């Protein structure tokens, strides 16, 4: 089982994802503040970060860039409610393992996490 962080400026969204993935046996931490999430990765080994594109102070891609500097092996799944060519391109360039669109149903989330962790 993996250690996963979820970062979304909407607390309910982060907690919902945490609940789904915890049930699969993963260790999940949910955050709404960018800095707290980055600090957590600094102190703990993390397999996967699920990042919303639109955050309070930074973009999800900027957070991904920071995390990769701290922990290159941490994988990233980007979530967005407003997919665009630019954000998709950016996310993949900065090493995101997957770019998904919200709303995402439970089965899609589970299969995406499984596929990314397996890769």
């Amino acid at each position, binding site marked *: 089982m993996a250690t996963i962080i979820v970062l979304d400026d909407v607390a309910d969204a982060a907690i919902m994802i945490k609940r789904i993935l915890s049930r699969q046996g993963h260790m999940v931490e949910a955050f709404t503040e960018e800095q707290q999430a980055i600090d957590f990765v600094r102190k703990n080994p993390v397999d996967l970060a699920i990042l919303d594109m639109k955050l309070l102070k930074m973009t999800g891609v900027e957070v991904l860039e920071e995390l990769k500097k701290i922990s290159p092996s941490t994988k990233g799944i980007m979530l967005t*409610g407003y*997919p665009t*060519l630019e954000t998709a391109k950016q996310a993949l360039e900065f090493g995101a393992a*997957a770019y*998904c669109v919200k709303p995402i149903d439970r*089965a899609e989330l589970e299969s995406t996490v499984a596929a990314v962790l397996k890769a």
Partner: protein
Amino acid sequence: MGQLTQTLSRWGQALFAPAERLRKRYEAFKALLAADEASLLLVAELEEIFAGARQVDPARTRWLCGQLTEAVGEVVERLLAMHPGGYAGLSEAFARIRARVQACVQARLPLCSASPLPDSGGPLGSPCLSPLVLPLAQALGRPELAGGKAANLAAVQKAGLRVPPGLVITTAAFRAFLDTGRLRPRLDRLLRQVDLSRPERLGPLCAGMRALVLGAKVPEVLAQALREAADALSQQSSEPGGGLLAVRSSAVGEDGELSFAGQYASELNVPPEDIVDAYRRVVAAKYRTRAVTYRVRCGLPDDGAPMAVLLLPMIGAASAGVLHSSDNHPAQAGKCLSVFALPGLGEALVSGSAEPWVARLARRLPAQVLDVSGGAGVGLGQTVLSELVLTGLVLESMFGRPQEVEWALDQEGRLFVLQSRAHSAAPEPLPGEEVVRPDRAQGSCGPDDSGEPGAQTLAAGLSLVAPGRGCGPIHHLAAEAEIPRIPTGCVLAVDTLTPALARCVDRVAAVAARSGSRASHFASVAREAGLPVVSGLEDLRARLPEGLLVTVDATGGRILAGCAQALLEGPRRRQDEERQRLAERFADLARQTCHLTLTDPEAPDFAPEGCASLHDLVRFCHEKAVAEMVGLGQAEDSDRSGRGLGKARRLRSDLPLSLYLLDLGGGLEPTAASGPGRVNDIAPEGIASLPMQALWQGLALSGESWQDTGLSCDWQEFDRISAGIFRKDSRLLASYALLSADYLHLLVRFGYHFAVLDSLCGPRAEANYVAFRFKGGGGLPEQRRLRIGFINHVLTSSGFVVRVRGDMLDARLSRAEAGAVRRALILLGRLLVRTQRMDTGLADEGQAARLAEDFLSASGEAP
């Protein structure tokens, strides 16, 4: 009614010449009857349309409302002519209801209210207000000007996806084209004859409309604009001498809430110099049978769906196809994205004639293929697949719902989006719908692999094209030309899923095809209509013999022998939804036209102010006109004494019947008919009219027993809703007959309306006829329906031609010799007595049929 008018005119001249005032009044009455007849026929047809029994072009509905308004205006005018200065408030009531009907009819055309062409000031209006040509980017958010397809494509471009450079020939150009050729009124004349319940007439009507468009002149200013647009696009091509063009329909309403998938036309590889003809052809395709059918089914008026045209340069495609942004994966939980592709241009895919390469992909980036099936010759790399996934996700997010996207990949590997429209999702299955238990098929008892005892699986593993289940006998479609003759309720077996099949989606229970994919245009239309469709049945003809009763379980990808009651739930639900949709669509218009609220002539609101609909006005005027004619109005208003014909005489008999006779000449015995100062009543022996004698025999001397007051039901309530003819003392509820030696016009009064009998019974068989109308009546709708069924049964068995529309029955016996007319009238006399007794008694159709047989087996001669 024409014959009646002629007859009455003849008698009218002879009778009332001495009393000019009475003669005029009588003429007005005749004209009122004719307009009343016309009004009720129009009401009956509108009721059928509102109830979904007929699907007609909105042009017809509008036209019928106009005709009805006119006919009712005539009824009102004639009543006022019968009693100048009377009926205060009647003209105002008519004006009020007419205005509401007009408002309703116009409000039903919301899409054309934004007409960019001013009504006057030259055929093309001001070019800056209503451009003939728009760059694609300016089509954004202007579907009323650019059509749905172009507006959507502009949005795709705005989202940063690659689309070909395009120019839009606007709806303003379309209107200018129609105006120049004065096509609108000519098209409307044909459109108002469009009735989907008469599919055999559709083809010729639509061909007529296309011929109008193809034969019309494109105004020079538009032709010039078309040539300039075509040249501009052509010259952007790298091809030597300029590139070829795609000319695509972009109608208002297309690719919006309704898809119109494949109903209109696109022309590919058009040389720029052919642009004017191509434009005309694409506009003409608006009147293809399938497009008109689709539009009428959706209730959209023709002028609410004007045709813009999108000009695009041809893409030299290496491969092309369709993608569905959000599909259900059959094997996995969650949604997936499906890509359908063919080498070259994608036309063979959407026309349903080729099996594509199909890939299902996870809805995320980078692309992950879940599974692949089908055709060879297409290899889409990881980069292209990722681009397609992103395209699907971006467009779904932007439009806010799943999308069907047409795409093409050019020789350099660049992905172009050609079109995007909403993808009709499969409806959620109802609880319990998963259980399929067809009845044991006839003659088959072999083991089956479906796991259900008794169900023989004829085919399994078929491709789901549109979900659902349907049941019916197999019908093989021999040729496209045979589509109008497809029997209702069949399971249609076809080779390919051509878009022309859209014409029959309302008539068939399911479709089974040899080939054709979910990405075809017809699949979109079928999903919208909730019609189950499967494909991939190679040996279709061998496995599904003509006439075999089968159940198509499209959701489960299989065909089973036999049929089961439980499976009919789906189609029934579709019908219920359709009825509900129609009821909502027509609620307002029905209230202003057909609804009858004025039912009780003795109620205080039986007045012009109480009229809420055109039907109410007809009812009111007819009631009052009859009262005027038979002089019954005198009781209400002493000033009016003498206004009535004053010659109506009451028939004296022991029957509980209040009937007034008005002799037009030779209808009563001279001794009985003359003699001033006599008591006004007349005995039945005084009747000299041949048809009235026959009717009287049926009414009084045939052994039919009359209703008396010893009923077990509440008499007052019964009397309120039942036949007024049978109430002895109410003059307002009396019936009357106009008589001559060989003529009878009888109005038998019922609580709601009338039975009308009109007959000529003379020596010339050619001129003789019996016309009988039975309309409405009181009682519950079900009882009314059963009673109409009883009458229909009796009269059809007796040689009448019968037509039932709503709760109105019309029966006619024509060109019969006098003996046959006499027998028919005796029968009708008996029928009037018998149906009077039947008002409250009918329980079901079986009982109605048995009673009809009993009735027919009795002789009708005096006992």
